[in-house]
C-alpha cells in the first residue's frame, strides 16, 4: 500500500469521528504546550536570576566571616572558639594587592530613622564610596558617600527612594538632617530605584560611612567584604590572596569563607536548570497521560470498527497492513497534536513574556525538541497495541460484528 494512501485513509477515518479526533488532539496538544510553557518559565527564571548576578559583576570575591566547612566538626563545637570578627582593618588590608581593583566593606544593622515627626525602622548599611561601583548602583540625585579615609566617620547618608518618599514626602531630601539612632546624618544623595540587587532592596535602605556605622552599632564586625578583582582571569589568585592575608591577620586561623560571584552564579544556574528539567518532567507526565488516552480511544475505535477490519481482511489486507493503517491514525493524531501544542505553547510563553517583561520567557530548544519527540513516540507506542489488536482479529467473527 502506498504511503500517501495510508495517510489519506487514516485522515478520512479521523474526519469521520471529529469529536474523538479532536479530544485526542487536544490531549496531546495540552501536553506539548505544557512542556513548552513550563520550561520557558523555568528558563526565564534562570535567565532572570543569572542576569541579576551578572549585573553585580562576575569578578567579585565575597568574604563572609565564619568558616563554613562541610567536613569535620564545626569550630563552634570547640569550647571558647568563636570566629574572629571581620573588621574594617581586615578589609583595608585586602586593598594591598595589584590584582585587586577595589574593596567595599559592608556592615548591616537596623536603626530607627526620623525626620520631623516621621519615624520608621530602617535597614542601615555601613560602607564606603567603593560600594557604588562594586554593586553597580546608580544615584537619582546628589552624591554618594565621600571617598577617602575609611576610618573617618562623616555624618552623611545616602537613602533609598522609598525611604525618601516616606520620610520626606514632597520636601527636598538633600541637605536635610536625618536622625538615625542617636546620631544625625545629613542626606547627600538618593539612590535610583531601578538598581538591581540580589537580597537588598535598594529602595529601602540607608547608607552611611562604615566608620559611622561602627560607632552607631558599637561593633567592629563586618557583614561582608566585597573584593573586585582586576579581571576574571586573576580570580583564583585573588581568592588565594584574600585567604592568605586574612589567615595571617587572624593568627593563622582560617575563619572566613571566601566565595566567588562565579561560583554563586554557577550554583544558581544549576538550581534553575534542575527546576526547568523538573517542570519539563512534570509536563511530560501529561504527555504520557495523553498517550494513554490515545490508546484508550483507539482501542474503543478498534472494537467499534471490527466489521470494517474484517472487511479489509476479506479484501486482501494482511496483518501488517492493518497494523500500519491503525498506527497511522494514532501517529497522525499525535503529530498534529504536537504541532498544535507547539503553537499554543509558543503563543502562551509569548503572552507571559508580554505580561512579565522582566522575564525572558523563551522555551529552550531541547524542551521543544524533547516535547515534540515524546509526543510522537507516545503516539507510536500507545498506538501499536490497539493496531495489533485490530490486525489479529479473526475476519469471520469481525465480519459478523
Amino acid at each position, binding site marked *: 500500500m502506498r504511503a500517501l494512501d495510508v495517510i489519506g485513509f487514516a485522515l*478520512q477515518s479521523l474526519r469521520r469521528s471529529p469529536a474523538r479526533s479532536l479530544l485526542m488532539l487536544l490531549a496531546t496538544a495540552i501536553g506539548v504546550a505544557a512542556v513548552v510553557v513550563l520550561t520557558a518559565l523555568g528558563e526565564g527564571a534562570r535567565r532572570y536570576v543569572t542576569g541579576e548576578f551578572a549585573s553585580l559583576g562576575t569578578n567579585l570575591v565575597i568574604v563572609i566571616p565564619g568558616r563554613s566547612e562541610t567536613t569535620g566538626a564545626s569550630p563552634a563545637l570547640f569550647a571558647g572558639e568563636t570566629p574572629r570578627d571581620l573588621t574594617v582593618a581586615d578589609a583595608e588590608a585586602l586593598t594591598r594587592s595589584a590584582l585587586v581593583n577595589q574593596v567595599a566593606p559592608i556592615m548591616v544593622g537596623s536603626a530607627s530613622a526620623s525626620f520631623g515627626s516621621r519615624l520608621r525602622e530602617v535597614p542601615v548599611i555601613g560602607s564606603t564610596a567603593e560600594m557604588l561601583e562594586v554593586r553597580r548602583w546608580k544615584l537619582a540625585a546628589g552624591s554618594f558617600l565621600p571617598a577617602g579615609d575609611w576610618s573617618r566617620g562623616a555624618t552623611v547618608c545616602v537613602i533609598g527612594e522609598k525611604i525618601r518618599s516616606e520620610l520626606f514626602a514632597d520636601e527636598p531630601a538633600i541637605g536635610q538632617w536625618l536622625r538615625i539612632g542617636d546620631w544625625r546624618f545629613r542626606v547627600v544623595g538618593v539612590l535610583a530605584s531601578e538598581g538591581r540587587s540580589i537580597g537588598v532592596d535598594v529602595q529601602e535602605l540607608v547608607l552611611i560611612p562604615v566608620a559611622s556605622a561602627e560607632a552607631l552599632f558599637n561593633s567592629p564586625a563586618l557583614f561582608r567584604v566585597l573584593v573586585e578583582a582586576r579581571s576574571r582571569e586573576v580570580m583564583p589568585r585573588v581568592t588565594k590572596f584574600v585567604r592568605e592575608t586574612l589567615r595571617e591577620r587572624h593568627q593563622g586561623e582560617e575563619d572566613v569563607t571566601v566565595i566567588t560571584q562565579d561560583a554563586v552564579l554557577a550554583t544558581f544556574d544549576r538550581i534553575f536548570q534542575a527546576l526547568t528539567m523538573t517542570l519539563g518532567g512534570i509536563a511530560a507526565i501529561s504527555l504520557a497521560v495523553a498517550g494513554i488516552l490515545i490508546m484508550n480511544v483507539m482501542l474503543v475505535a478498534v472494537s467499534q470498527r471490527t466489521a470494517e477490519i474484517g472487511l479489509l481482511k476479506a479484501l*486482501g489486507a494482511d496483518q501488517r497492513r492493518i497494523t500500519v493503517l491503525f498506527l497511522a491514525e494514532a501517529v497522525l493524531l499525535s503529530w498534529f497534536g504536537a504541532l498544535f501544542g507547539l503553537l499554543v505553547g509558543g503563543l502562551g510563553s509569548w503572552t507571559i513574556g508580554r505580561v512579565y517583561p522582566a522575564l525572558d520567557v523563551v522555551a529552550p530548544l531541547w524542551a521543544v525538541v524533547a516535547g515534540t519527540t515524546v509526543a510522537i513516540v507516545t503516539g507510536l507506542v500507545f498506538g501499536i497495541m490497539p493496531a495489533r489488536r485490530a490486525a489479529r482479529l479473526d475476519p469471520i467473527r469481525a465480519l459478523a460484528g
Partner: protein
Amino acid sequence: MIELDGISRFFQVGEEEVHALESVDLLIRDGEYLSLMGPSGSGKSTLLNILGLLDRPTDGRYLLDGRDTTTLDEREQAQVPGQKVGFVFQSFHLVPRLTAFENIELPLLLAGVAPAARNERVDRALAAVGLEDRARHRPDQLSGGQRQRIAIARATIMRPAVLLADEPTGNLDSASGADVIRVLENLNSEGLTLVVVTHDMDVGRRAARQLRMVDGRIVADALAGRP
C-alpha cells in the same frame, strides 16, 4: 480450479465439539456456476469461508489452482481473499464513511495500485454494475440493491477467478434481488467462477450446478435439468 480433499472443520463450543464440515470432497472447475443450499448450521458459510481462505480447515487438503493453500505464508494467504477470490456478503459490508467510488477503490488501495490506474478501473467497474451516476454517494444514500451492486463491483475489481456470494439477495426485495443475480450471472458468463450460498430456492435453482448440504456434508450434487 478448486479441489477440496477430505476437508473438515471442527469448532470447540464449550465442552462440545461442533463438526461444521465433515470430510468434504469437492471439485470446482473454472467458470462454473454453483449454488449451495441447505438448512441453517449445515456448514454452508464455513465452507465458503474456507474456500475464501478466511478460515482454515481442521483437516484435509485444499488446492487452489493446483497449489496447496496450507503451504502459503501469512502474507500470501491474506492476499488470496480479494486477489484470487472475491467476497459478496448478505449485509453488503460497505464502509459507511466512504463513497461508492472509494469503497470500490479500497482493494486497489490496499494492493498499492497507482491513483491514475485506480480511477480508470473503478469507473469501468461502476459502469459494469450500472451505477456511474452514484459514484459520489455514500452507502446510506443508496438503496439495498445499489449497495449490493457496489459490493459486487468491489469484490471483482481485483479480477479474481472466483466470486463467493453469501446470501447475496438475503436482505433485498425480489426486484433488487433479481438485479443483483443478473449482475452476478453476467460476470459468470464472462468466465468468473460463481458460488452462491442461498436459502432462496428460486435463486438456488438458477445455478447450473446445485449442491445441498446437511450437517456438514454435501448430500446432493446435481447439474441443472437432471434429477
